[in-house]
């Protein structure tokens, strides 16, 4: 048994966890929802897993084909929809401060 590759992946996993904690340490309340939506889009990375499972199967059976099809559809919806809706939220968010500063001036 060769655990080298697996342990390297665990190391990457642990370090990524610390990065995730560090990046979000300071965030204004107004950005909570867009940030949730943005991280939601990022975990759409799972679509890659669906592609790999189907794509590396030499002779995918029909059940595997059906499951993978649904998985890829779901994953794509997660990624595309997630990034588009986050962009919309942020676009709305961006116009507000400029409007209020205009009011002050």
């Amino acid at each position, binding site marked *: *048994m060769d*655990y080298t590759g*697996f342990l390297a*992946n665990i190391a990457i*996993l642990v370090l*990524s966890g610390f*990065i*995730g904690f560090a*990046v*979000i340490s300071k*965030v*204004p309340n107004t*950005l*909570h*929802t867009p*940030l*949730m*939506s*943005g*991280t*939601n*889009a*990022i*975990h*759409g*990375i*799972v679509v*890659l*897993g*669906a*592609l790999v*499972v*189907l*794509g*590396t199967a*030499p*002779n995918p*059976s029909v059940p*595997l084909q059906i*499951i*993978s099809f649904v*998985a*890829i*559809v*779901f*994953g*794509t*919806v*997660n990624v595309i*929809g*997630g*990034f588009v*809706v986050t*962009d*919309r*939220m*942020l676009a709305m*968010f*961006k116009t507000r*401060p400029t409007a209020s500063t205009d009011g002050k001036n």
Partner: protein
Amino acid sequence: MDILVYALYIVAFAMFILGLSGLTAPRSAVRGNKIAAAGMAVAFVATLIHIRETSSWLIIIAALVVGVIIGIPPARKVKMTAVPQLVALFNGVGGGTVALIAWGEFIESDGFTGLRVASGPVLPLVVASLFAAIIGSLSFWGSIVAFMKLQQILPGHPLSVGRLQQPLNAILFLGSIVAAVIVGIGSTTTGAAPVWFGAILILAGILGVTTVLPIGGADMPVVISLLNALTGLSAAAAGLALNNIAMIVAGMIVGASGTILTNLMAKAMNRSIVSIVAGGFGGGGKGA
């Protein structure tokens, strides 16, 4: 060629981290989101290069087209007030993907017994896959309930069976773990256990439903954030099982940052995560 794939994955997750740190400040948030989206495109291309010799191009392209057609219109057209439930739905399908990946792997490796052929650790990969199956299914069904509550398909107020709620959830949780252990043991001896694998997905799914139902509508954003973090963790587990560093890094970053974010959101509402998840308690903060 695999070196190219690995290198592109490294570029991709660097862009995720950069994008995410951009998302934490108002001025850089829009750009941060775009950087993360570009990183996703890089990871996507890398994966298509990785699986370039597949015989399933037709299914893959069809699924991608369907996903884009289904995903874009609601994201562009839905009213801003309906965005939280849309995020819940997007999170749910992500969790569903993870559960389906685990299921697909289960079928492809003949009940995980196929994993034994490859040199390397078997048990950790099986455990990671089973974790992905449980959390993915829980996140999918929990998010669907959160969506239906916010969309007012289901009543927004807490729905619970009272004192029996916590024991019921505990039984469902233990049940899914037991089913997972049975499948895991089967993977190291002989034979497949499709029924038990189905039991994992079903029990974890019911747990997702019974956990979110007793939570009031006002607490729902915190719950969605928690489910978001869980989906991230399950994505990282699936990444471990598939030896895919882009999934490990992106999933774990979301898992960790999502946990912190959930805590921040709960604090901003003067609530604790425990009291929210315990559900029904304190009227679920309805009308807060």
